[in-house]
C-alpha cells in the first residue's frame, strides 16, 4: 500500500494543520482527520501487531469494526490502550504508539510466534494444562502456576496506566419521545419526519460528524444536515455511542465529551454516561462490510472497499496506487469508479460469472469469475494471486502486482442492539446476511441495519420507521410500508472462504483474535460444533470486536463442515456493550471522596474545630478520638474512657437512628414489634427494647419514648437505622394495613450528645435554664423530659446510659447542635471533663457488657445475649413463635460472656476463636466479638460468645486461638458485666 493525501477530495479543514506523534515521531494531519486517516496520509502501513501471532497489521476499515489498528493513546496517567485508530479524532498534540510489540510494531521480536503457530492453535491453552498423554504429564496446579506468569505477560494487547485516572467522568439522564440510533440517510430522514410531527427527538451518532455512510459521498454536507436538524428541534448527540439497549426502551449511551481537545481543565468531564428513556427507539445503526477469508488476507494494505471510499471522500486520502477490489456483490463499483477517478489503477475481481452494472467502467478493469487466492508480502502488499473456481476447488491462475487489496464479501446489518433485547436475527438467503427479527417492544429497525442497501430506500425506511413509531405510540394512524430488503441489480453470490491448497494457510476469519479458518475446522473436529461452543473454543467474535468482522464467515465455515445451511447453525448472542465502555464512564463521579456519599452529624464542624480525629462509621464521619498533643489513639481513648469514669465526658451520638411513630394505633404497633411490653409505658418514660426478625433472631435494640398517648420516639442503633425504618414501613404497608400509624425518619432532625460520668449532673445543671429539671426526682433513670438550654434553646433530655455511668442524652434540633456543644463543653471543662469519640465509647460499653452490631450480627437470639427476660410470654410479637424453635433455645448455644487474659499483659483481637485447652481446632467453642483495654480494670478485656455461657466455664480456662496472627493465649471466661454489675453508677 502506498497511501497519500490528494487534492480536491475530502471534508477536512486543510487550513488547520494538527501535529501528532506516532511511535515517537512527529507527523501532521488536518482538522477533521481521524488518527487512521492521518496515519494513512503519512503512508504509515503497519500500525499494530496481531494478538497471538504478532503479525503486522494495518488499518482495515474506517469504523468501530476496526480490527487491525488498535493502538495506545496518551502517556502517563492518561495512557489508554486498545483505542481504534478509526474512531479516534485527531487533535493537536495527540500521542499514539503501537502495542503488543517489542521493540516496535515495525520490528517485533515476538513475531516468531507466527512461525510457531502450529503449536498454538485454538484450544492450546486448555490442552496444555490437561497434560501430555498417555500419562497426562504436566497436568495440575503446579504446572499452571509455573506457566501462568509467562502466559499472562504474553496475553492481552495494550497495557493501561497503573496511575489513577486524572479525568472526570459523569452520568446523566434524559428522556425523549423517539431516540434514533445512527445518523445515516435513514436516521436523518426519520428524525426530520418525527420533528415535523412535533415529537421530541434525540439523534445519536457515534461519529463526530453526522451522515453515516453519506460521509463517503463527496456531495454530502454534514454541517448543513446538522444545522437543519437543529433548526427542527432535533437533539443531535454527536460522538455518542448507543452501547446497550435495555428493557422498556432504556438506552445506555457513552458521550466522548472532550476527546478532540487536550483537556487543560481537568474539572470538565471527558466522557458522559447517559441513560436515556425513550418512548420508541429507531435503530439505524447501519451495516458492516465483510471481508473474505483467503491466505494472508491480513497483510497491511488489506481493507474493506467502502473504507477506502471513506478515506478518499471524507479525508482526502487515496489508500493505494494499484488497487485490486475483490467482491461478490454490486456495492463496490461506485467505489472503483471514484478511486480510479482519483488516480488509482483499479481492477475489480468479481467472483460472479456475469454482472450487469450500470456504471462508467471505462476507467477501471473488471474481471469476472475470479477470486483472491493469496496475498504476497509481509509488511506490505507486493502482489495478489488470483484463482478461479472449478467444482468448489480453487486454482491459482495469475498474479497481479498491486499495493492494496480491498475486500467486500457482502454486508452484515448491525443487529447488535436488537440482539440485546433477545430478538434473534433472521437469515436472508437472497442477500446472504442476518436481518433483524421482529421486536416485541417499541423498537423499529431502519436503513441498512434492516438489510436495505439503496440510499433512496434507506430514506424511505427512515420515514416509515417514524410512522411505525407514531402508530405504535398511539399518536396517529398512518399508512406506511418499508422498502424491500436488498437493492442490488445483480444477486450476491456466496464467497466466504477461498480455501488454499497450502497445508498451513493463514486465512483469517477474525483478525482481532487471530482466528483462522483452520481453527474453525479444528473446533469442528474436536466436537465444538455449537455456535456458542465455537465462539468460546476459538474466541471468534469475542472481546471488543464482538463478531462485527468475522462472525458470518465463521458461521458459514461451520455450516459447510456440518453440511447445514447458515441459519441452521444459528448465530451467537450479541451482548452489551456494542463498543467498549471505559471503567471511568461506568463509575462516573462515584470515585475518590465521592465513592460513597458522606454523612455528617449536626456537630460535624464543631467536632473538627475541637480537634476530633474522624473515622468512617458506615456512611457517617464520626469523631474517633480527640487527641491531645502527640497522643496516640490508644493513649487518647484510654484517657477519654478513664475521664468519663472519673469526672465527665461528652460524645456526639447523633448517628443513632430516630423514628417518629405517630397515630392512634402507635401503642399497639410498638407492642407488636418489641419483645417486651410497651402497652402500659407511661408518657415521659422511655424503655429499652429488643426487636426480633420473623425468624426469632435479634434485629436491633434501642429505646422508645412515649411522647403522648399517640406518639412515640424510637431510637435505633446507627448501623440498623435504615433497616429498621424499612422494616416498620413494610409492616405497616403490607401486613398491618389496618393500623393507623405513621412512621417517619427524624434522624436528621435531631442532634444528640451523650454526657456521662459522675459529674454529669453538675455539668448539665449549669447548662439549663432550670437546673432542677434534671434532678433525680424530676428525671429518674429511663425517663425523659423537655427542657431549655441556656439561650432559650429547647431540647429533650433522656436519662439513659450506654457507658454505665450516670448519663444523659440531650436531643437538640439539628441547627442548634453546635451551640449546644459550646454550652456543654464550656461547662464540662470546669469539671476536668473531656470530649470522647467512638473508640472510648466502645471501651466503656464493653466494660459494661452492652451489645452492639458486633454481637447482634444476625446470628444471635435474645437469649444468647442474656436478655431473654425481656421476651414476653404474655403477648405475641414479631419473632415470638420462631424464637422458640428448638435450635434457637438449645442449651449448648453460644452465650454472651466476658473474656480476661489469664496473663494480664496479654492482648487478643476481635475474631479470636475460643477453644478448649486440649482441642484447639476448627470453629472451637466460642468467639470474641469486641475487645478493648479497660482503663478501669487495667488490662485487656473482651466480649463474645461461648457455648453454654459463663456458668459452664467456671474455673475452666480456655485458649484464644488467632490463626491469622498465629497466636494462642490462655483466657478466663467471666460475666459479660465486667464493671458495676448491679448498675449502681448509672442510677447514682
Amino acid at each position, binding site marked *: 500500500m502506498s497511501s497519500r493525501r490528494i487534492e480536491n477530495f475530502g471534508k477536512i479543514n486543510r487550513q488547520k494543520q494538527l501535529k501528532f506523534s506516532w511511535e515517537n515521531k512527529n507527523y501532521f494531519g488536518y482538522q477533521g482527520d481521524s488518527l487512521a486517516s492521518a496515519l494513512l496520509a503519512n503512508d504509515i502501513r503497519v500500525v499494530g501487531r496481531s494478538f497471538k501471532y504478532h503479525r503486522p497489521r494495518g488499518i482495515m476499515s474506517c469504523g468501530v469494526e476496526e480490527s487491525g489498528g488498535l493502538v495506545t493513546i496518551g502517556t502517563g496517567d492518561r495512557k489508554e490502550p486498545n483505542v481504534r485508530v478509526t474512531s479516534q479524532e485527531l487533535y493537536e498534540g495527540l500521542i499514539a504508539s503501537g502495542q503488543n510489540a517489542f521493540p516496535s510494531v515495525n520490528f517485533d521480536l515476538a513475531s516468531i510466534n507466527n512461525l510457531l503457530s502450529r503449536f498454538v492453535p485454538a484450544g492450546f491453552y486448555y490442552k496444555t494444562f490437561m497434560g501430555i498423554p498417555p500419562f497426562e504429564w504436566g497436568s495440575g496446579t503446579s504446572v499452571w502456576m509455573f506457566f501462568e506468569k509467562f502466559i499472562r505477560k504474553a496475553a492481552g494487547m495494550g497495557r493501561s496506566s497503573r496511575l489513577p485516572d486524572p479525568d*472526570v467522568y*459523569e*452520568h*446523566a*439522564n*434524559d*428522556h425523549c419521545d423517539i431516540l434514533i440510533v445512527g445518523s445515516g440517510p435513514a436516521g436523518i430522514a426519520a428524525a426530520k419526519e418525527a420533528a415535523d410531527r412535533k415529537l*421530541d427527538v434525540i439523534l445519536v451518532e457515534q461519529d463526530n460528524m453526522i451522515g453515516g455512510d453519506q460521509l463517503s459521498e463527496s456531495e454530502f454536507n454534514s454541517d448543513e444536515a446538522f444545522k437543519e436538524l437543529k433548526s427542527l428541534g432535533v437533539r443531535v448527540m454527536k460522538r455518542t455511542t448507543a452501547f446497550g439497549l435495555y428493557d422498556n426502551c432504556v438506552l445506555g449511551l457513552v458521550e466522548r465529551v472532550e476527546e478532540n481537545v487536550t483537556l487543560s481543565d481537568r*474539572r*470538565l*468531564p471527558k466522557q458522559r454516561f447517559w*441513560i436515556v*428513556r425513550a418512548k420508541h427507539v429507531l435503530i439505524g445503526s447501519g451495516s458492516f462490510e465483510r471481508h473474505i477469508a483467503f491466505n494472508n488476507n491480513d497483510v497491511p494494505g488489506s481493507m474493506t472497499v467502502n473504507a477506502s471510499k471513506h478515506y478518499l471522500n471524507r479525508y482526502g486520502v487515496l489508500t493505494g496506487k494499484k488497487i485490486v477490489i475483490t467482491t461478490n456483490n454490486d456495492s463496490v463499483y461506485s467505489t472503483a469508479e471514484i478511486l480510479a477517478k482519483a488516480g488509482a489503477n483499479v481492477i475489480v475481481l468479481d467472483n460472479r460469472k456475469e454482472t450487469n452494472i450500470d456504471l462508467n467502467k471505462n476507467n477501471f478493469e473488471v474481471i469476472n469469475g475470479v477470486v483472491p487466492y493469496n496475498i504476497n508480502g509481509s509488511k506490505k502488499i507486493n502482489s495478489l494471486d488470483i484463482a478461479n473456481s472449478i467444482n468448489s476447488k480453487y486454482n491459482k491462475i495469475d498474479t497481479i502486482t498491486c499495493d492494496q487489496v480491498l475486500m467486500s464479501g457482502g454486508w452484515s446489518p448491525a443487529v447488535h442492539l436488537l440482539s440485546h433485547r433477545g430478538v434473534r436475527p433472521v437469515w436472508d438467503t437472497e442477500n446472504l446476511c442476518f436481518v433483524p427479527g421482529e421486536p416485541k417492544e417499541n423498537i423499529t429497525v431502519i436503513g441498512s441495519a434492516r438489510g436495505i442497501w439503496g440510499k433512496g430506500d434507506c430514506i424511505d425506511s427512515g420515514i416509515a420507521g417514524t410512522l411505525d413509531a407514531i402508530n405504535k405510540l398511539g399518536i396517529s394512524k398512518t399508512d406506511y410500508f418499508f422498502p424491500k430488503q436488498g437493492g442490488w441489480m445483480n444477486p450476491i453470490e456466496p464467497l466466504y472462504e477461498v480455501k488454499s491448497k497450502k497445508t498451513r494457510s493463514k486465512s483469517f476469519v477474525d483478525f482481532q483474535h487471530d482466528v483462522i479458518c483452520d481453527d474453525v475446522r479444528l473446533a469442528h473436529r474436536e466436537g465444538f460444533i455449537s455456535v456458542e461452543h465455537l465462539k468460546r473454543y476459538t474466541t471468534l467474535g469475542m472481546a471488543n470486536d464482538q463478531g462485527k468482522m468475522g462472525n458470518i464467515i465463521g458461521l458459514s465455515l461451520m455450516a459447510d463442515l456440518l453440511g447445514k445451511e447458515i441459519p441452521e447453525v444459528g448465530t451467537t448472542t450479541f451482548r452489551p456493550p456494542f463498543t467498549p465502555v471505559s471503567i471511568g464512564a461506568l463509575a462516573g*463521579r*462515584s470515585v475518590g*471522596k*465521592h465513592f*460513597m*456519599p*458522606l*454523612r*455528617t*452529624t*449536626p456537630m*460535624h*464542624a464543631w467536632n473538627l474545630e475541637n480537634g476530633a480525629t474522624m473515622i468512617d462509621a458506615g456512611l*457517617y464521619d464520626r469523631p474517633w478520638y480527640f487527641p491531645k498533643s502527640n497522643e496516640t489513639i490508644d493513649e487518647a481513648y484510654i484517657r477519654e474512657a478513664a475521664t468519663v469514669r472519673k469526672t465527665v465526658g461528652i460524645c456526639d451520638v447523633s448517628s443513632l437512628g430516630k423514628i*417518629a411513630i*405517630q*397515630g*392512634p394505633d402507635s401503642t399497639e404497633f410498638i407492642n407488636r414489634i418489641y419483645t417486651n411490653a410497651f402497652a402500659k409505658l407511661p408518657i415521659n418514660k422511655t424503655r429499652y427494647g429488643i426487636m426480633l426478625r420473623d425468624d426469632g433472631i435479634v434485629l436491633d435494640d434501642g429505646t422508645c419514648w412515649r411522647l403522648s398517648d*399517640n*406518639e412515640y420516639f424510637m431510637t435505633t442503633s446507627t448501623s440498623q437505622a435504615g433497616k429498621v425504618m424499612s422494616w416498620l414501613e413494610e409492616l405497616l404497608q403490607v401486613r398491618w394495613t389496618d393500623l*393507623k400509624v*405513621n412512621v*417517619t425518619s*427524624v*434522624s*436528621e*432532625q*435531631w442532634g444528640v450528645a451523650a454526657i456521662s460520668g459522675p459529674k454529669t449532673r453538675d455539668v448539665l445543671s449549669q447548662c439549663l435554664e432550670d437546673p432542677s429539671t434534671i434532678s433525680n426526682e424530676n428525671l429518674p433513670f429511663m425517663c425523659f423530659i423537655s427542657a431549655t438550654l441556656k*439561650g*432559650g*434553646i429547647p431540647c429533650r433530655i433522656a436519662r439513659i446510659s450506654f457507658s454505665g455511668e450516670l448519663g444523659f442524652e440531650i436531643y437538640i*434540633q*439539628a*441547627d*442548634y*447542635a*453546635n*451551640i449546644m456543644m459550646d454550652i456543654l463543653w464550656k461547662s464540662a471543662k470546669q469539671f476536668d471533663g473531656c470530649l470522647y469519640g467512638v473508640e472510648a465509647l466502645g471501651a466503656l460499653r464493653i466494660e459494661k457488657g452492652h451489645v452492639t452490631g458486633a454481637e447482634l450480627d444476625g446470628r444471635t437470639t435474645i437469649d444468647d445475649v442474656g436478655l431473654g427476660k425481656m421476651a414476653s410470654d404474655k403477648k405475641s410479637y414479631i419473632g415470638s413463635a420462631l424464637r422458640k424453635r428448638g435450635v434457637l433455645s438449645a442449651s449448648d448455644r453460644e452465650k454472651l460472656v466476658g473474656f480476661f487474659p489469664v496473663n494480664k499483659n496479654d492482648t487478643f483481637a476481635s475474631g479470636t476463636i475460643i477453644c478448649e485447652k486440649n482441642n484447639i481446632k476448627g470453629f472451637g467453642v466460642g468467639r470474641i466479638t469486641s475487645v478493648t483495654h479497660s482503663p478501669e480494670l487495667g488490662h485487656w478485656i473482651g466480649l463474645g460468645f461461648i457455648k453454654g455461657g459463663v456458668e459452664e466455664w467456671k474455673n475452666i480456662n480456655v485458649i484464644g486461638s488467632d490463626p491469622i496472627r498465629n497466636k494462642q493465649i490462655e483466657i478466663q471466661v467471666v460475666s459479660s458485666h465486667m464493671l458495676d454489675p448491679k448498675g449502681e453508677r448509672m442510677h447514682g
Partner: protein
Amino acid sequence: MVDRSSSLDTSYKPGSFPINNNVTIKFKETTNLNLKQIACWPDTLFQSETYIKEKLNIEKVPHFNEGILNDENSIWRIEPLKWWILKNNLDLPDHLGTNLDLSHAYTSINITGENTTLLLNRFLPIDLRESVFKANSSASSAIHHVNIKLLKFSKNNFQLFIPRGFALSTWEILLETAYQFGYEISER
C-alpha cells in the same frame, strides 16, 4: 433565641464561578427552614382535604406530586397521604392525622438558571422536561444514592431538599458538576 446553623456553613462560599464568561446556574440556600409534615389515613383523606382547603383558603388540595405555591401558601403533596407545608403553621386535628416538624431535617437549596434541568438530570432519572415536569410539580428521587425531594416552582426554578446529614457531600458534588455550566452562589 440563638441563630440556627446550617450543614453548609463551612463550605457555602457566595460568589460567581463562570465558565467562558457564562453563568447559567444559580444556587441559594434557604436557611431557617420552616417545614411541617402533615399526614392522614386513607379513611380521613376526604375530611383532611376539606380541612386543609378551609384552613388555607385554597380551592383544591394538590394531587400527589404536585403543590400549590403563592403568596400565602406553599403546600406540597409529597406522598399520597402526606403533605409538606413550608409557609403556614397548619396542624391536622388528632382524629384526622398527624403532624411532625421537619424544619431541621433537611437542607434546602434553590437552584435556578437555564441549565438547571441539565444539572439535575446529571443525577436524577426524573423526566424534567418542561412539558412533563411542569411548574408546581414535585418528586422524590435520589442524588448519589441519597434520597431527595424536588419541588419545581417555575420554569428553571427548583427547590431541592437534601437530608441534612448528606447535604455537605451532595453540595460538593453538585458544585463540581455545575462547574461545566458556570454557576453563582447567592448570599443566603
